């Protein structure tokens, strides 16, 4: 297979303009003759469905939750970036582009990222017009804050609930089109299969989660905006229903998967407190501005933190990185925390936590200043842990947060299956090996509001207007395949619960394919995964039946896919022998134990082609060409 990213000709700054000019259009009267399926109603899916319907296409919108408004995007806290330069602090489209490319450790496509930076400004305007109540200055102008990885203040926000406000804006736009009759909503549906006819995506099979019915839907194009797969690791900051099922099953139908091993781990989450734990909660990174990270000097020191004298505390980040100290980037902070815990110096009941201590800041600035800055975060922490960080040092631990990998897409956001598009966190496109804070919301909305409405026309204009038919054998076959899988899951009747398998898988992946990886660990994982899969399919216990609301069955299907997908993640991690972005490859370090990127050998996107059941996938490489930025190594010493 030959990968063609379809990057438009011309200088970087003109590519998007030229491309839109050169693309075919669908004339307004014909738009209503095309049906488009959009799976997912997060920022990417809701904005796409609404915008496509506004143009006149007939849209079918699917989501797992009972309402489109509840997609995982709702939980994003910090903000959304844009190159408005409202602060007059030297920001520009080029700077946002540069920061994103550099933040991604030079593993993203220049043309896509530049377009993202260009569109960022339209997003803010659009959201304001929708009535999204962004934070304002006294004079009524939009307020900004700064975020990691940038020296300018370009993040727009609505308190700590930016994702919620943006999503409610997109959801409103979507519901308006529902009212107009241009969008049909299908909530509580899970996409189980992609249907490909004559090489092109023509529909999906879904399970109606309320009654277990399998349903088939046909369309001229299918858009996946199904989010990220961080829940591979069992514990993550993702919502419980976040999954890889939609993209994985599309992958098995021919959509290549790019950079599956690129996962972001967030350093400041509330630590795990027991085996029963179901998810991890993010605490804003801003806490590291005033908190000092430490562990006891000696391993297995179980004393209360207040009993550990200064001299016996190890402020390891300040010691190791004197110039950045506690403010080192996400990956460095995460990795070092794990290192300390692995060395037995972790604190708390589980030993999987480090302290984030505000005592010095409180002494310096007073309780009221600290409370003003972090009051709501402290409250949230106290709600969950029952401890007040004003008096007891906070405990934090890294957690899986975001997945940069996803379905490979070209400049048009089309996957390697014609007619199948991927948007938002579900695609791989813009963040390289590491995503900057406040850039996921930007990308989701850029894809949905502005990119797909323009690029899908180019595909549809060349597509037969005849409505595909769900009676065709391909639909029947896909439906039967789904049915067989469900029947099998329900008939195993084994001894181990679904969560039990998921936990085992998560732990294995966290240890071997998390923030630090090595050849040996990855090889071991690769050997263990088939065993987990084998046991799952012989010993999982899925109670209930298929003809009803059955949340166990839903989870079982998702975990089955996570198990298969993990193998691809490990293969990808094995191939990439360099340290890069969020992950450290232990064999690739500088003398000072810092991550060492290898541009000579790994300046490519890994694009995996499904090989078939129990067969090895094929690796294709999209070489990355940098014409507008100079590659540089990071240093935080």
């Amino acid at each position, binding site marked *: 297979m030959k990968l063609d990213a379809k990057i438009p000709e011309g200088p970087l700054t003109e590519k998007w303009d030229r491309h839109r000019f050169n693309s075919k259009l669908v004339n307004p009267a014909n738009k209503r003759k095309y049906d488009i399926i959009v799976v997912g109603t997060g920022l990417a899916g809701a904005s796409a469905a609404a915008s496509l319907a506004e143009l006149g296409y007939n849209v079918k919108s699917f989501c797992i*939750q009972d309402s489109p*408004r509840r997609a*995982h995007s709702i939980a994003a806290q910090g903000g959304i970036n844009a190159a408005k330069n409202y602060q007059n602090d030297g920001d520009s489209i080029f700077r946002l582009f540069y920061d994103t490319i550099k933040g991604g450790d030079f593993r993203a496509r220049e043309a896509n990222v530049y377009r993202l930076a260009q569109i960022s400004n339209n997003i803010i305007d*659009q959201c304001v017009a*929708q*009535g999204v109540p962004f934070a304002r200055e006294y004079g009524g102008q939009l307020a900004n804050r700064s975020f990691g990885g940038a020296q300018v203040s370009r993040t727009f926000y609505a308190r700590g609930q930016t994702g919620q406000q943006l999503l409610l804006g997109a959801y409103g736009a979507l*519901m*308006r089109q529902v009212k107009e009759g241009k969008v049909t909503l299908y909530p509580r549906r899970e996409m189980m299969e992609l249907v490909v006819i004559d090489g092109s995506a023509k529909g999906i099979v879904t399970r109606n989660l309320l009654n277990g019915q399998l349903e088939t839907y046909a369309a001229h194009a299918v858009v996946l905006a199904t989010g990220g797969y961080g829940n591979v690791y069992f514990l993550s900051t993702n919502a419980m229903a976040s999954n890889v099922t939609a993209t994985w099953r599309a992958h098995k139908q021919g959509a290549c998967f790019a950079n599956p091993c690129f996962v972001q781990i967030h350093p400041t989450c509330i630590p795990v407190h*027991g085996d029963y*734990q179901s998810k991890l909660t993010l605490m804003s990174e801003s806490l590291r501005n005033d908190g000092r990270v430490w562990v006891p000097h000696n391993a297995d020191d179980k004393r209360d933190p207040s009993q550990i004298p200064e001299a016996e505390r190890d402020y390891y980040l300040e010691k190791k990185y004197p110039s950045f100290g506690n403010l080192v980037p996400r990956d460095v902070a995460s990795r070092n925390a794990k290192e300390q815990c692995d060395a037995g110096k972790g604190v708390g009941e589980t030993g999987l936590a480090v302290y984030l201590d505000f005592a010095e800041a409180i002494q310096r600035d007073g309780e009221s200043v600290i409370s003003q800055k972090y009051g709501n975060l402290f409250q949230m922490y106290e709600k969950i842990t029952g401890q007040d960080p004003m008096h007891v040092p906070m405990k934090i631990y890294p957690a899986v947060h975001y997945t940069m990998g996803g379905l490979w897409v070209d400049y048009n956001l089309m996957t390697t299956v014609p007619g199948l598009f991927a948007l938002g966190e579900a695609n791989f496109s813009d963040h390289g090996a590491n995503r900057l804070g406040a850039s996921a919301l930007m990308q989701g909305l850029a894809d949905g509001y502005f990119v797909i409405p323009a690029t899908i026309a180019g595909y549809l204009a060349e597509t037969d207007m005849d409505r595909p038919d769900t009676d065709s054998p391909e639909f029947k076959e896909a439906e039967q395949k789904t049915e067989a899988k469900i029947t099998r899951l329900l008939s195993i009747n084994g001894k181990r619960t679904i969560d039990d398998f998921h936990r085992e898988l998560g732990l294995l992946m966290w240890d071997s394919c998390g923030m630090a990886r090595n050849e040996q660990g990855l090889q071991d994982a690769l050997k263990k995964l088939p065993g987990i899969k084998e046991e799952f399919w012989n010993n999982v216990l899925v109670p209930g039946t298929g003809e009803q609301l059955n949340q166990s069955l839903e989870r079982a299907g998702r975990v089955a896919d996570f198990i298969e997908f993990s193998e691809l993640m490990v293969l990808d991690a094995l191939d990439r022998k360099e340290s890069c972005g969020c992950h450290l490859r232990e064999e690739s370090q500088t003398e000072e134990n810092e991550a060492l990127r290898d541009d000579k050998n790994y300046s490519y996107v890994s694009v995996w082609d499904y090989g078939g059941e129990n067969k090895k996938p094929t690796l294709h490489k999209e070489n990355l060409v940098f014409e507008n930025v100079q590659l540089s190594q990071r240093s935080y010493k």
Partner: protein
Amino acid sequence: MKLINLIVKVWRQENETSSGSFQTLKSGPISTDMSFLEMLDVLNEKLAKVGKEPIAFDHDCREGICGMCGAVVNGHAHGPENETTLCQLHMRHFNDGDTLVIEPFRARAFKVVKDLVVDRSALDSIIAEGGYVSVNTGGAPDGNAVPIPQDTAEQALDASACIGCGACVAACPNASAMLFVGAKVSQYALLPQGQPESARRALDMVRKMDESGFGNCGNERECEAACPKGISIRNIARLNREFIKAAIISYEK
């Protein structure tokens, strides 16, 4: 960490048409660090292991923001803690030996789907009638073109912080959705972008609310007390003003 044992009386209902009843379960040792939903997870693992069907309950973010979770615990929607969703309620607020009575959100407009899962799609239908500003994508003026006083933006955000969980409806003796509608109408009534449609929005959303089987507001203030996001009933007052204004001066019907 402390361990407590609880008696759990939970509503079990096979499907929309079947009649339900309470099932009494012993929780076994529960860590006080668990969230309420994690307590249910533990119960469910135990049920599954002995071949029984787990308790169905809705949840997703488990961070108090998606609005998916919710149940009535000992008579309180989302349980006894103030401004806390069920997923953010922690077991340290209960004592060893307590009995927990757990029921779905009940209202004429919400059908029980199974156990604690209810159908809240009526709330989406209300939004479809006007819970937005009618602008298409593209062509929006610069974000700073219309200044919005900080206070106004903050008040609008107070209103739009609603997570659409339906606790207000479940808590209301009349199963009214006035707090939900009031919050949305207020958000746009406060902002300049919402003005052109404000009359129609209030009329249409209230009409849809009535049609969907929600009751009238009787000023009981139970909604405000149950709201996990602290949405104030001032929003209902604003809705009433908007509604009357619309009904009197507007040409729209």
